[in-house]
């Protein structure tokens, strides 16, 4: 890479840190956790879009699209689609819990303290592991592309994130997310422009197989449905997304922020999939996550490559900072506060900030030392949807939900997902997430039905 490109990347990271310092340091717990619940719709839109557009929805989707084509647009669309549905019906209800600081806190209000504990611990583990996972994936991909050691990339990429997440909590996380969104939204489409295919998509058709332009991409129907279900349910109401709803100015702005972010996913996923197909056509034989970066390198002029790489950094950092923040809040609000109910807001704020530093450093150490952990982390990643999501959605929509049904659903979902994944070895190729979700709902409704029956008897 040319030194001008490196300068652009360095200026970008420097500007982010400078803007963070310019934004005032957080002094109130509510500032740190939910940005004083005063986020306008446009900020909810930008920060939510930047958060859900992580490395998986750029580098990962592009790599899959290079192999299978536009079917990956159909699969990836499940994410914006669920975001729209959540925005329409669930996010406004979530925002109505105006005394809550986290998703665990909301679950506790609906289902009681044991569920708050479990959700808090799950949220803490989930988010902490995702911080490490992103750091590792980021290190490997950028190292592969630039030749710089993965260790250096992991440290240099994660330290600024730890700094600004601890400094200003969710307010600086959201501000930097919005900046990162602006950069990535303008920079990434330029790859298509400079590739020369923007006004000449016809010539692309001759360079890849016809399968790339079919709706199934050669997948058997069962596998395709499984992938679509995994994408639809896999990221519903992850803790960082819930924070965006809680931080919105009012329920209406929470809902419309989510709907706009979902709508934005339609063009975004199309661009990413198209870049993947361009990469597949231009670099035959190349597979894996580096295909996106190699396509950039192939087509972008000096200076522009640095800007797009800054956009990629933004994609990664904006997802990492949100998970780091959610893990710290889960620790202080859902775990520490339950152990010390009399802890003051100042103490909780201090512990949240310490937690950001500690989780960030531990995540770096894990990412540096345990590369083989990625598979294990992916399993943790699949544990959120089968446990918390369905009881959370139902609890938000059904005011009189029986408290015991939430716990039953979570326990059954976790057990079924674990047995499906490890004990049975994923039978019929059905993702453990789907099996866990079915078990969750069976247990949830069985308990809810018995409770209602007991009450009417």
């Amino acid at each position, binding site marked *: 890479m040319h030194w001008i490109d490196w300068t652009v990347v360095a200026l970008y990271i420097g500007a982010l840190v400078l803007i963070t310092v310019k934004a*005032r340091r957080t002094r109130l717990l509510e500032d740190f956790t939910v940005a004083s619940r005063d986020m306008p719709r446009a900020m909810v839109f930008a920060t939510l879009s930047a958060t859900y557009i992580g490395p998986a929805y750029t580098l990962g989707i592009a790599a899959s699209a290079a192999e299978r084509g536009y079917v990956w647009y159909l699969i990836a669309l499940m994410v914006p689609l669920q975001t729209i549905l959540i925005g329409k019906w669930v996010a406004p209800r979530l925002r109505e819990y105006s005394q809550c600081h986290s998703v665990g806190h909301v679950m506790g209000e609906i289902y009681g303290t044991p569920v708050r504990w479990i959700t808090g611990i799950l949220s803490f583990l989930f988010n902490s592991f995702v911080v490490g996972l992103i750091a590792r994936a980021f290190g490997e991909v950028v190292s592969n592309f630039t030749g710089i050691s993965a260790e250096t990339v992991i440290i240099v990429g994660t330290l600024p994130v730890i700094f600004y997440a601890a400094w*200003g909590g969710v307010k600086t996380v959201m501000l930097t997310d*919005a900046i990162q969104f*602006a950069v990535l939204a*303008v920079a990434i489409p330029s790859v298509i*422009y400079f590739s020369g295919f923007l006004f000449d998509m016809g010539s692309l058709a001759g360079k890849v197989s016809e399968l790339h332009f079919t709706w199934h991409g050669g997948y058997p129907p069962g596998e395709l449905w499984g992938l679509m279900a995994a994408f639809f349910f896999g990221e519903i109401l992850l803790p960082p997304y819930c924070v965006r709803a809680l931080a919105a100015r009012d329920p209406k702005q929470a809902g419309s922020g989510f709907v706009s972010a979902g709508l934005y996913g*339609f063009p975004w996923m199309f661009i990413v999939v198209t870049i993947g197909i361009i990469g597949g056509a231009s670099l035959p034989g190349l597979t894996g996550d580096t295909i996106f970066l190699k396509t950039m390198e192939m087509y972008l002029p000096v200076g522009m490559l640095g800007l797009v790489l800054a956009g990629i950094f933004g994609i990664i950092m904006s997802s990492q900072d949100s998970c780091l923040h959610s893990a710290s809040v889960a620790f202080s609000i859902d775990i520490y506060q339950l152990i010390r109910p009399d802890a003051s807001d100042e103490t909780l704020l201090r512990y949240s900030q310490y937690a950001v530093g500690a989780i960030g450093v531990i995540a770096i150490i894990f990412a540096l030392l345990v590369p083989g952990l990625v598979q294990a982390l992916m399993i943790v990643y699949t544990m959120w949807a089968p446990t918390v999501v369905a009881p959370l959605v139902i609890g938000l929509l059904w005011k009189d939900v029986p408290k015991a049904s939430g716990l039953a659903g979570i326990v059954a979902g976790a057990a079924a997902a674990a047995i499906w994944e490890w004990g049975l070895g994923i039978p019929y190729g059905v993702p453990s997430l789907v099996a866990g979700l079915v078990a969750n709902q069976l247990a949830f409704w069985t308990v809810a039905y018995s409770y209602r029956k007991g009450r009417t008897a």
Partner: protein
Amino acid sequence: MLQAAVIISCGICVVAGLYVGIMIFREFPRLRNKL
């Protein structure tokens, strides 16, 4: 149709990015205090 979809998608993406960029630039002093 594919051609039109790619051009429209890129256009929407860039316009959304510019909109958020301008919003941050104009609102930063207020956001800085309010956030």
